């Protein structure tokens, strides 16, 4: 059976893509953020996953308000990035794994998660930036399965539902009859708000409690409604839902291998965490 080697959770804001493009990794503003990643890359080089299941939220590249799925799973042989309107250079295409995609789709629907399936799917910065942070040379050594969660239009799926989606994804991967190694990646957050007179809102106390909870008490955040999470973490900080999906997928003995938290990058409290998963 396939093995889930661990999970990585990270911020994904577009400004990171701009910083990568301008080679600002050692710039004093950016260095405390980028310094969070070498330990994660070393771990990836060691565990050498074959596949990344990447949980993210689309920001209006692939999906518009005409049809807005709550949960969508990619089932394409390849995923491409495209112009999002603000001129970050696009990255090379990502290989998919349609056989595993369909296995996950079958398993999720059997588990009563009635997801949308996508045989064509553009992936936006929330997918591409984490990939570029983890594999900066942008020669992707993994096949990818995108899992997209709606955080554009309320009602959003609850924290509890997202955590259980993660558990269902974990069960799906671990029932895949191969010897392949899978890493689960969740992207977004942490606290930030782009819109309204509360723009610039950051909640360090919430972020730190949330990060701590993911180690030993991953259900902690499921006590909150999505509107609670908007109030606590900001309108975009609600992207912590992606972290809950990724963490939910870890079914074994989970250990925190690394974490980094830094305020601010752009309007955002940024963070990365790495979890090992011993079966």
């Amino acid at each position: 059976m396939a093995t889930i080697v661990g999970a990585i959770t990270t911020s994904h804001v577009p400004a990171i893509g701009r910083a990568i493009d301008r080679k600002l990794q050692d710039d004093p503003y950016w260095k405390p953020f980028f310094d969070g990643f070498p330990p994660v890359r070393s771990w990836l080089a060691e565990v050498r996953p074959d596949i990344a299941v990447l949980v993210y939220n689309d920001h209006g590249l692939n999906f518009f308000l005409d049809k807005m799925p709550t949960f969508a799973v990619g089932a394409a042989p390849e995923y491409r990035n495209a112009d999002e309107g603000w001129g970050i250079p696009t990255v090379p295409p990502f290989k998919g794994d349609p056989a595993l995609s369909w296995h996950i789709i079958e398993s999720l629907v059997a588990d009563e998660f009635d997801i949308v399936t996508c045989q064509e799917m553009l992936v936006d910065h929330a997918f591409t930036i984490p990939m570029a942070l983890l594999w900066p040379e942008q020669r992707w050594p993994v096949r990818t399965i995108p899992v997209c969660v709606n955080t554009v239009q309320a009602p959003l799926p609850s924290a509890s539902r997202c955590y259980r989606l993660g558990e269902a994804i974990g069960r799906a991967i671990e029932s895949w009859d191969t010897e392949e190694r899978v890493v689960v990646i969740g992207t977004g957050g942490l606290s930030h708000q782009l819109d309204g007179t509360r723009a610039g809102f950051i909640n360090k106390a919430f972020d730190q409690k949330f990060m701590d909870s993911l180690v030993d008490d991953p259900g902690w955040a499921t006590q909150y409604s999505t509107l609670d999470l908007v109030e606590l973490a900001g309108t975009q900080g609600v992207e912590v839902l992606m972290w809950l999906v990724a963490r939910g997928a870890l079914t074994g003995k989970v250990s925190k291998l690394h974490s980094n938290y830094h305020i601010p990058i752009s309007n955002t409290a940024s963070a990365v965490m790495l979890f090992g998963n011993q079966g």
Partner: protein
Amino acid sequence: MNAEKRRIPGTTVFDGEQARKGYALNRMCFSFNDAANRAEFLRDEDAYCGKYGLSPQQREAVRNRNVLELIEAGGNVYYLAKFAGIFGLDVQDIGAQQTGMTKDAFKARLAAAARN
């Protein structure tokens, strides 16, 4: 009749009501993923807004380049960011505009959040 909506200070939750109100505006902003559409907007803003059927309130908010007005008119920040991108404005520019601060003051306030 549904229960009264929850109020979060300084925040407009983009829900079904906003999504209905803002559909034409957000649809136009979604079109700005395409560079040719961004150029067409810049060539003839009136014609472009007309093509998408913006309401007078939305047209005025677009004319004013005012983010709070755009949100009031049903705009969603993810699509509005594509509109702002046409003018080379990033999320810190729009944050500064919405809070009535200079960009430097807005950035300083963000940095101060690290010391809380």
